[in-house]
């Protein structure tokens, strides 16, 4: 090779090496944060609690073999003026680089959510490089968020995973909760025609003991993490809680039900027939009539009968038709109750405003400034429900019906 080329050649070779291993970091220098909890101190500073995964103690890890004897998480607490400063301060306590890309849960204490709101917190989270917008947000009710992330869980070794899974499964199977991530929350919060909903969590039992290995040594556990209610936000702040039937009604209108039980009364017997929804579709249509917004909600549900406590002849199509009617009424009542509740608190959690914006942008411009306070509470919502029984389960008539026949 010509000597003239040798020097540039070696310069070119060293060029990538000189840059070093930019942004490279070894796995054992990372502290994987599974959950981040934020509380508010009396002096106004934030208290952050980090739930870190301790990989050596997670079952499945070959080396060490410590799983089941030591907690699979470690928590650290730090204070600071804003959520990111908290994270920076924590580095004085943690020997590794806090890694937020795998943070799946952001826990906010009820107190903080009510007084300060989430706006400034979420901005910091979304702006941060590592934090994902798919991180789920939950609110710890009547307790410190820090305590919440310190509770150990039995089946899921990482408590954050447990919280998310129970959130997802109750949303799917029971229809009383809603999983909200950062992105969903921010989208709903910035829209005037919609307000965000966030699920609440409580811990039942002895929290102090639940932080130790005692929690994992009994089948019952010292305390359990439970999904509890849906928090309604207005202008970034927690307004009130929706619970029980009303939360189910809310999810019906929101088209969020995947599978949900509906129980109806039959001939004076309370909750005599249980019906399980397997397919559901809710259509919301918004129109303006004479300058007034009109919303019609159409719910269509398909499902099976699951439990029948009264002697009814379900092989008779007329009886089934009557059951369907009763189901429709029940769902309609739930949905209307949820809507009335929301109208009372003047928060459009269903996104009716957004629908109106889409269908009639011109009148929306007029309605927008006073939507939440004037128009939404006075809204005339027409709820129609269609419910179908597709199957009666693996049996035709209930035992009770057959027994009655025998005695006749």
């Amino acid at each position: 090779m010509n000597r003239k080329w040798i020097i540039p050649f070696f310069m070119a070779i060293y060029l990538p090496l000189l840059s070093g291993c930019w942004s490279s970091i070894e796995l054992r220098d990372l502290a994987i944060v599974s959950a981040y909890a934020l509380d508010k101190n009396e002096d106004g500073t934030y208290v952050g609690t980090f739930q870190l995964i301790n990989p050596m103690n997670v079952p499945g890890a070959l080396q060490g073999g410590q799983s089941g004897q030591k907690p699979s998480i470690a928590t650290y607490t730090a204070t600071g003026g804003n959520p990111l400063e908290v994270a920076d301060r924590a580095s004085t306590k943690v020997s590794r680089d806090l890694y937020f890309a795998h943070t799946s849960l952001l826990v906010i204490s009820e107190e903080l959510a009510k007084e300060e709101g989430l706006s400034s917190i979420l901005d910091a989270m979304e702006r941060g490089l590592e934090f994902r917008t798919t991180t789920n947000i939950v609110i710890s009710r009547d307790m410190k968020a820090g305590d919440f992330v310190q509770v150990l869980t039995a089946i899921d070794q990482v408590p954050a995973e447990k919280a998310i899974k129970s959130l997802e499964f109750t949303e799917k199977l029971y229809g009383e909760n809603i999983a909200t991530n950062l992105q969903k929350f921010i989208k709903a919060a910035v829209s005037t025609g919609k307000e965000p909903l966030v699920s609440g969590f409580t811990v039942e039992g002895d929290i102090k003991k639940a932080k130790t290995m005692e929690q994992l040594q009994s089948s019952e556990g010292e305390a359990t993490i439970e999904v509890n209610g849906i928090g309604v936000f207005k202008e970034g702040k927690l307004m009130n809680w929706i619970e029980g039937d009303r939360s189910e009604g809310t999810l019906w209108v929101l088209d969020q039900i995947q599978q949900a039980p509906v129980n109806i009364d039959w001939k004076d017997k309370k909750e005599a027939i249980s019906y399980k929804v397997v397919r559901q579709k809710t259509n919301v249509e918004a129109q303006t009539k004479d300058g007034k917004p009109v919303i019609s909600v159409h719910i269509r549900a398909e499902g099976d009968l699951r439990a029948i406590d009264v002697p009814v002849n379900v092989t008779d199509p007329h009886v089934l038709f009557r059951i369907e009617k009763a189901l429709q009424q029940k769902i309609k009542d739930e949905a209307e109750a949820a809507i009335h509740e929301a109208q009372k608190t003047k928060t459009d959690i269903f996104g009716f405003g957004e629908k109106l914006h889409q269908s009639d942008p011109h009148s929306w411009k007029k309605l927008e400034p006073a939507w939440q306070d004037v128009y939404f509470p006075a809204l005339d919502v027409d709820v129609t429900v269609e419910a179908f029984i597709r199957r009666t389960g693996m049996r035709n008539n209930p035992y009770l019906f057959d027994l009655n026949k025998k005695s006749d």
Partner: protein
Amino acid sequence: MSYRKFIKRKKPKEQSEDLEKVEPKSIGTSIKENLNIIKQKTGNSPDIIIRMLTFSHDPRVSTAIVHVDGLVDNPTINEFLVQSMEDSVQEKLEEKDIFKVFSEKVIAVSSLETRKDWDSLFQALLSGDTIILADGKKEALIASTRGGERRLVEQSDSEITLRGSKEGFTESINTNTALVRRIIKNPNLWVETMNLGKQTNTDLSIMYINGIVDTDIVKEVRQRLGRVDLDAILDSGYIEQVIEDESSGLFPTVTHTERPDAVAGNLLEGRVAIFVSGTPHVLIVPAVMIQFFQTPEDYYVRFPISTLIRMLRVFMFLISLIGPAFYVAATTFHQEMIPTDLLVIIASQTESVPFPAIVEALIMEVTFEILREAGLRMPNKISATISIVGALVIGQGVIQAGIVSPAMVIVVATTAIASLATPNYDIAISARLLRFAFMLSAAIAGFYGIILGLIMLIVHLVSLRSFGVPYMSPFAPLVPKGLKDTIMRGPIWSFNERPKSLHPQNPVRQGKHQKPLPPLKRRMVRTNTKEGDKNES
């Protein structure tokens, strides 16, 4: 400059002139002198056998048979040369020209010619022919008696197929060309021979199908071979290295095979085969990248299956190229891309490992290369020991000692198997070398580094040519029709044209409408066949 002068000055000129004086160029009349020259030139080697034949009733006429022990077919010499000469010479000696008698009436071998010059005589002698000398004749007879011990036609070790011919080439060039002729029975299958290597005088044949092959390619092959002036040619690898387009690149631009059916298939596509005496590896030019992912068996099994297998091969090549690099990049740069559960498992494994991921990867890769090389060169009995040491001591040991994480061992093992499963060794070895470069670039810049490396690799590949044919064709330049025999293997009935990038003289490969159709009516015999048709049942 002084260095060059120094070398020039030292060149001995006079010595060569001396030699020329001693050696006469052509044969003399005296049989004794001639035999002396043979003995002198071969240094009295005992394997040069000289058999004198003198005839009892006429001692004036003496003849000699010269051959090299082991290179000749002994029964031929005994029966058709010595025996018949002794038997018949007594009767027909009245005639004067003894060679004429020999060639016309006595010697019963297939080929017999007269030569005068020593060069061709020695060439023939050392190739296994027998020289017959006679006193008073200024020429000699060459009887073709080539034979001797050779390896039989066996199954090829390096290219094993489940379906298809089991024949593999041998070290004998004549056997090899014959094996291809047996497949392509066509007078257009042309063979040209030449002799290369100053010391070894190795026979070489180039084979092509006249009327299909692009004559420019044949010319180019001839020209490149004509340029060769090597001392020795011990394997087709010597030829490959002096005729390939890019000798310093990592990718092979000449392919080779041990299978006659592979050679036949390539000749029919318009390629040229180069046979070298003494090796079962036949070179095929020009070669394109995608050929290295194909095996003859691909064409023998049904097309959906071989398409899937070819895709698998390309995937394996990619794994063997960037497998460890991918792992290093993902675990040191892009932890957010690994699912949380998997990341926790990997993290728990690397917790006690004292090295960075790249060092860990390099340790395991180098260890594997050592094991592989050791297993390759060792006799079979010892290689079992090596695999035990490799698997148990190193594989199990490094994990238990916590020097390397199990995840890394899995990655390296997968890469190793993928590399071994690549059908062509030449391309697998390129990937093996490049793997280290990719690992380093991944350690420096993560996925960004891998992508940069891949871009550079593709630029290099696209710039390559093999005997004027772009290496990446039919991808770049794109020949849409050629794509059906690349990563996918279209049905045989759709291969109506030969590969365009080879510029075949006769681009039409087969008749149209080769797709089999179900019978038109329920009766199995198609009704539109007439008497005399080929498909008449």
